[in-house]
């Protein structure tokens, strides 16, 4: 269980995140959604400690996140970003195993884990000696996921992991990711601005606007009983063009 209580973040004059409470039960997939600049990425960055909250506390399984335990806590989280954030000078293998090697994990364990993860994300082992620039965008995101999962974290954080991919690959990877999440049974928090993707992945959707949570619940609840007109507008804005298109040609 991940618990945020009264967590807020301010950058100089702008409020990036108003004091916010959020609870994510273990094993659940939660999707943060909203327009650009709504605070969804800020929330994720606060959880992984890339920025420090101005107020409030974040606890993972009862342990509060502090600057002192940040490095240990990060080992219990996996973090994937849009462009993958892979280290261009390291091979796929070295990218994935860098932290395990730093922690001096057993070499056999590392090899086994690497093979296991390659199988999970469906990457052939031959690719392990390549460099990130020699991979396709989809392959890079798979590697990024392997790296995030290497130390078997309790919490997986994904910031628009599929945002930079073209639609076909994105569609394919959505399906695979969902099945991976199901196999892993981990707590997952994913950020996206795509409502369909959110509905596809999330047990729970958290819709944000201007640094505040507007509504929390399953997609059905948001669609049927929007808490305010913005929720309806946000959902329809992404749905309407397609529906009108099918009306005309269907």
């Amino acid at each position: 269980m991940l618990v945020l209580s009264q967590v807020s973040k301010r950058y100089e004059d702008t409020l990036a995140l108003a004091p916010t409470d959020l609870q994510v039960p273990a094993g659940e997939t939660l999707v943060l959604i909203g327009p650009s600049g709504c605070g969804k990425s800020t929330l994720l960055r606060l959880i992984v400690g890339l920025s420090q909250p101005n107020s409030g506390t974040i606890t993972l399984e009862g342990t509060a996140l502090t600057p002192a335990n940040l490095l240990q806590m990060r080992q219990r989280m996996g973090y994937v970003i849009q462009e993958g954030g892979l280290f261009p000078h390291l091979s796929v293998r070295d990218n994935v195993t860098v932290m395990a090697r730093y922690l001096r994990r057993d070499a056999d364990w590392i090899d086994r884990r690497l093979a296991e993860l390659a199988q999970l994300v469906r990457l052939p082992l031959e690719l392990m000696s390549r460099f990130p620039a020699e991979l396709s965008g989809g392959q890079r995101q798979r590697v990024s996921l392997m790296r995030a999962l290497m130390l078997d974290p309790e919490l997986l954080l994904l910031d628009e992991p599929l945002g930079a991919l073209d639609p076909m690959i994105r569609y394919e990877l959505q399906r695979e990711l969902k099945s991976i999440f199901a196999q892993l049974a981990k707590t997952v928090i994913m950020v996206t601005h795509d409502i369909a993707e959110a509905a596809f992945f999330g047990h729970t959707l958290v819709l944000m606007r201007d640094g505040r949570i507007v509504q929390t619940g399953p997609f059905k609840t948001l669609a049927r009983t929007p808490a305010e007109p913005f929720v309806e507008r946000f959902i329809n804005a992404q749905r309407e063009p397609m529906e009108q298109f099918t009306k005309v040609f269907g």
Partner: protein
Amino acid sequence: MNVSRFTVALLLVLWAAPLVCFANGTEGSVTITVGSKSFTESVILGDMLAHLARQAGIEVSHQRQLGGTHVLWNALLSGEIDAYPEYTGTLMQETLARDNLLTEAQLTQALATRGLRMTRPLGFNNSYAIGMQEALADQLKLRTISDLHHHPELVLGFGNEFMDRADGWPGLQQRYQLPHRNVRGLDHDLAYRGIESGKLHVTDLYVTDAEIDYYNLRALEDDLNYFPVYEAVILYRADLEQRAPAVAALFKRLAGRIDAPVMRELNARVKLQGDAESAVAASFLEENLKLDIELQTPTAWQRFWRHTREHLLLVGISLGAAILVAIPLGILAARRQGIGQIVLAIAGIVQTIPSLALFVFLIPLLGIGGPPAVVALFLYSLLPIIRNTHAGLRDIAPAIAESAMALGLPSHARLRIVELPLATRAILAGIKTSAVINVGTATLAALIGAGGYGQPILTGIRLDDIGLILQGAIPAAVLALLVQGAFELIERKLLPRDLRSSGETQNKCL
């Protein structure tokens, strides 16, 4: 990054360098060092001193054309050199001007209080004179310095030392009330070429200069008796009489042996006939003091190797130390914005100090020769490396830097595993820039007695010998290219294949 290890390494380098490379072998047998100023007459006399010391069985080194009076005087006071040729007028009017010395006896006394002695005059008065082309002087009907009064349009060019000395241009202008406004300072030897080409009309001469006859110059009469007498003497440290009494005795034998025509002849043999100073000095001693001088003339290759060795040492030590210091400073600058600005500003200011000035600033602190040259080159090499390390680290994409953080890698591990490797190309580019600057600037180190490829360049300028200048300039250029090539090889080794081809497309399809 282990800062203390860097510090220790640097201290070792800076300590060991002067000891290992530039020591004159002070232990055991007595060795002495003689110096000479940066004009031919002084170098010839310096070579005579070296021959004489060798004659007495003492190991001797000659710091040739070390610089101006100021540098040699201080080097003698501090014991870095034991003797050098000097002129009484220079001592009384310039170096010890504050003592208001009037007689030779007073001068001897003033020197004694500073632990110095001088020989009796060698026999020639190398006074300054003001000279111009004979033809031009005829045309303008100029005979005395006072006559210059009527020709304020003339361009005056004086040796740099004459420009600044109390007994040089400032005093001359005052005594004769000269109205000339177009007055410039330049190297004494270059002034002759300026006169020859007609770009300069009037310059200062040394009475014994071989060029006076060669260029057909007229020395204008000093009708107001401005210039004092410049009797040539050998100035040496009083302790030389104890350390090497035989040498001091031999120096004294030069007294009264060299008159002005002889000195002019010796100068002419070097400057006009192209003989080596040491050969000219040796033949004089053989003829006049009936000494049997064993002339050790190094071959061109031996000289080349010596200059190469000296140059490589200067560059290697200073650049190595600069790399060890500048990379950590660059890292610090990248991580701490505030300190970073200060570090970059200081390194930038150091870079703006003219290199020659920096060399000279360091002489009071570190003496002459290798140590001040190494420190100056070290300071010059810092900025490009600091700046490129800083830029290389700051240019790392935030996504990559943050991914390393999100993995839970601590700061030093992120630096070692991710950030430094990604900044390698920028850091090496900075090192390459520093190396090229360093190799070039090191040629100036010869001005303060550190040797290297600057030595033949300096001598070539003095003797107007393009071949000699090229003997220094070409190897220096080749060395710069070689050093750059070496770092390019290192770059190939260090960078993984991915980072070498930077233009790799990032958008391949699945």
